[in-house]
């Protein structure tokens, strides 16, 4: 058992190191590095624009400034704000793409020449005139001398990098999670933890709180009043969002200051709230019990932890976040906006999406929600009727032991299931092609006119239906076949001896015994068909005019073709509610019928 001790020591060291790293990440400001000097085209063209205006106008501050602002605004509609202070023209923008562009060679050349003229020793290096690093932010004022209008003017790049209060970043999150998993694994592997359970539990809990608070409260107010900017800029979120670049033209080189206020109100509130909860938790002994349970069942939890962790991170978390988005008006331009903001003004926005989706009932408008819902229900019902009848029918035929070539038939019949369904969908689109599709070929052979399948709602629906029936019956067939094979022969013999007809045997022996296997398959099949994205998207594409759109394809198009994320999320929530109520309803029904047969 000596080996065990080494393990323990190694584990403890790893945990301590990780813990130290985590603390370091949580409480220390990682100094932002000054990256390659960029801003390029943007600054260059602005300086040119300014130069042109300066050439054409007489020197009058107020008129000139307004002209410049107007022109810049026309040129760059995505500029968020323009400020003018003491002869500097500042343009604030946060468009990362523009920031990322490299400085064109022209500017570097001019700069190098000018520096040479001024007798600089190292003209290759752009010079940072002024730099300020505080606990939470770094400012860099970078001046490039440029020649405009025969005068040497400096272009100023004021780069602001703001760190959040207690800057949480994703590496900290990951260290935290690894730490968490390690603790669980240790609990699972060993018995020494119970002694320290309270200590470890407390550390974990405090870390969790710090993490949560950081995520919730990583917000900073940057006060730009001094610059006469029209509005303050709030930085939210992780480090990558926190770079702002201001470009301006400077006449004098006196440094500017930037006021940064931490919004500590929510932070303090959250902290005290969680603190109170924590105290209650400890005093009621809930935590004692909590860790008692975990330790007692540590093996079980260790087994399910990896899977549950993945499911929570990538299924439940996105689901909850998706639901939150449903209450916002996120779209392409404001995506990722402050969720707390939305929910503190819940009255203003709140249920708007749902109201807008549900308010108009119109079964003639293809883009209307109720039309799509009706279409989806019809689609699901028809598909399932075909799937079950064909599937069960074939299973009954194939279940006959005297049948020759059963295996061959079975293998050929499950072919549609085996082929990737996007390929199936695309094949069927080809089969229904107007000029060379096989379906029209068959019609011509029978003496009918070829049909342009995808231009009429009804025929387009039939193409989808044919595809999905072809795609879906093998699943039902296999399930039914499995259930049929498990029905004991004696039952049939007994039923034959009792003199019942074939029909009676079917209804009284086969159907009740098929039911337990078929019900879950049908429920699953319903959900799959209801959300059958691939067939609709790839066969008819929802056309013509969105008449064959399912709720799910509609939602996808809202999100990824119209970029109405909030609206699309609300749409999905409604779909989920419909499916959930179906699930609850069927589980009640099946429970009721089950009772009747037992």
């Amino acid at each position, binding site marked *: 058992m000596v080996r065990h001790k080494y393990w323990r020591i190694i584990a403890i060291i790893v945990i301590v190191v990780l813990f130290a790293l985590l603390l370091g990440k949580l409480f220390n400001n990682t100094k932002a590095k000054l990256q390659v000097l960029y801003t390029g085209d943007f600054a260059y063209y602005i300086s040119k624009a300014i130069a042109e205006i300066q050439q054409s106008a007489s020197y009058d501050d107020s008129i000139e400034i307004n002209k410049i602002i107007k022109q810049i605004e026309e040129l760059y509609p995505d500029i968020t704000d323009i400020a003018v202070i003491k002869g500097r023209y500042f343009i604030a923008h946060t468009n990362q793409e523009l920031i990322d562009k490299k400085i064109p060679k022209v500017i570097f050349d001019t700069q190098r020449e000018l520096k040479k003229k001024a007798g600089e020793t190292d003209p290759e290096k752009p010079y940072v005139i002024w730099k300020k690093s505080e606990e939470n932010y770094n400012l860099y004022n970078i001046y490039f001398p440029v020649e405009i209008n025969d005068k040497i003017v400096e272009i100023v790049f004021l780069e602001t990098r703001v760190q959040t209060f207690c800057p949480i970043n994703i590496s900290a999150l990951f260290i935290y999670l690894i730490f968490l998993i390690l603790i669980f694994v240790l609990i699972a592997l060993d018995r020494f933890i119970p002694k320290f359970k309270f200590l470890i539990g407390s550390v974990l809990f405090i870390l969790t709180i710090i993490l949560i608070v950081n995520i919730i409260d990583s917000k900073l107010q940057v006060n730009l009043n001094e610059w006469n900017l029209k509005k303050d800029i709030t930085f939210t979120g992780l480090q990558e969002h926190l770079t702002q670049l201001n470009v301006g033209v400077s006449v004098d080189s006196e440094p500017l200051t930037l006021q940064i206020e931490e919004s500590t109100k929510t932070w303090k509130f959250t902290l005290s709230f969680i603190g109170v909860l924590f105290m209650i938790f400890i005093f009621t002994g809930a935590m004692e019990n909590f860790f008692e349970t975990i330790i007692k069942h540590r093996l079980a939890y260790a087994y399910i932890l990896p899977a549950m962790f993945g499911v929570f991170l990538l299924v439940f978390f996105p*689901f909850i976040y998706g639901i939150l988005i449903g209450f916002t008006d996120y779209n392409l331009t404001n995506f990722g906006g402050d969720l707390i903001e939305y929910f503190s003004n819940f009255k203003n926005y709140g249920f708007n999406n749902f109201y807008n989706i549900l308010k108009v009932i119109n079964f003639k408008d293809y883009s209307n929600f109720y039309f799509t819902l009706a279409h989806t229900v019809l689609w699901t019902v028809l598909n399932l009727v075909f799937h079950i009848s064909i599937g069960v029918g074939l299973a009954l035929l194939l279940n006959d032991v005297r049948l020759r070539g059963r295996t061959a038939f079975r293998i050929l019949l499950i072919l549609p299931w085996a082929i990737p369904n996007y390929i199936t969908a695309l094949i069927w689109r*080809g089969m229904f092609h107007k000029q060379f599709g096989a379906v029209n070929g068959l019609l011509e052979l029978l003496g009918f006119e070829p049909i342009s399948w995808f231009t009429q709602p009804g025929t387009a629906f039939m193409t989808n239906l044919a595809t999905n029936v072809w795609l879906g019956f093998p699943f039902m067939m296999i399930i039914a076949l499995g259930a049929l094979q498990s029905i004991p022969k004696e039952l049939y013999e007994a039923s034959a001896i009792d003199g019942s007809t074939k029909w009676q045997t079917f209804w009284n022996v086969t159907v009740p015994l098929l039911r337990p296997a078929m019900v879950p398959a049908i429920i699953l099949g319903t959900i799959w068909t209801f959300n059958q994205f691939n067939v609709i998207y790839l066969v008819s594409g929802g056309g013509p005019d969105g008449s064959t759109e399912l709720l*799910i394809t509609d939602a996808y198009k809202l999100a990824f073709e119209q970029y109405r994320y909030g609206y699309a999320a609300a749409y999905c929530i409604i779909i989920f509610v419909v499916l959930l109520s179906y699930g609850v309803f069927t589980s009640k029904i099946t429970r009721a019928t089950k009772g009747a047969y037992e």
Partner: protein
Amino acid sequence: MIHRRSKFKIFLTYAILIIITGITIYPVLWVVKVAFGGRSLLSTSLSLIPEHISLDNFRIVFTQKPFLIWLRNSIIVSFVTTISSLFLATTAAYAFSRFKFPGQRKGMISLLITQMFPGVLMIIPQFILISKVLHLYGSLIGLVIIYSTTALPFSIWVLKGYFDTIPISLEESATIDGASRGRIFWQIILPLSKPAIAITGLFSFMTAWNEFILAATFLDDEMKYTLPIGLREMVGEFGAEWGNFAASSILVAIPVVFLFMLFQKFLVSGLTAGSVKG
């Protein structure tokens, strides 16, 4: 023998089976015809034999399209997904089947509920998680991470159902012989549940091999495409290269169909073992 069947009935059974099987495999054969039909213009002819057989389409797919790169991407994604999701699913299913612990029932039910989550609702947050948080936009690792978890709930349910059918007495005698939980799991339970593992592995593989929406949303570089997006491009809005599409879909479908046929004898036992018990 219970009933003596009339010849007509036997004939009818075979007729129905043959007709339905014919309808079932016709589209498949149609694709084969188009694939081997070379570049000749497509016709409405129902015949399944192309007018002249040529391998042009296959040649084009291999030489002028990045088909091999897509294939490599798909293989990487599918294999990694299968292995990781099998590992996660078997361990979790074992715990759900064999241990009694608080939250067991809730855990299983919550897994079932995830099956009702509309996928589209989750794409947006998953997209944020993968691209903004993990910085894996356009990378295959991001896809693998998502695929291995989306197939999990289904796999866990199937595997749990199967594990339930393995008698506990086996484990008890192993415990008496001094085997640890881990050994029981690896050396007794896993070898005994081959059908269910084969089926869940197959489904994980097929999820990754066939998935279309997420891949279309997450990948932007043609060199990183998996097969579904690559094939979709061929018959996309701007050009319908049906011949090339048919050739590559045959190439894509062959491994899956092969695997499927290999495992099909497990389909019934693997899938229904848990549920038939009701």
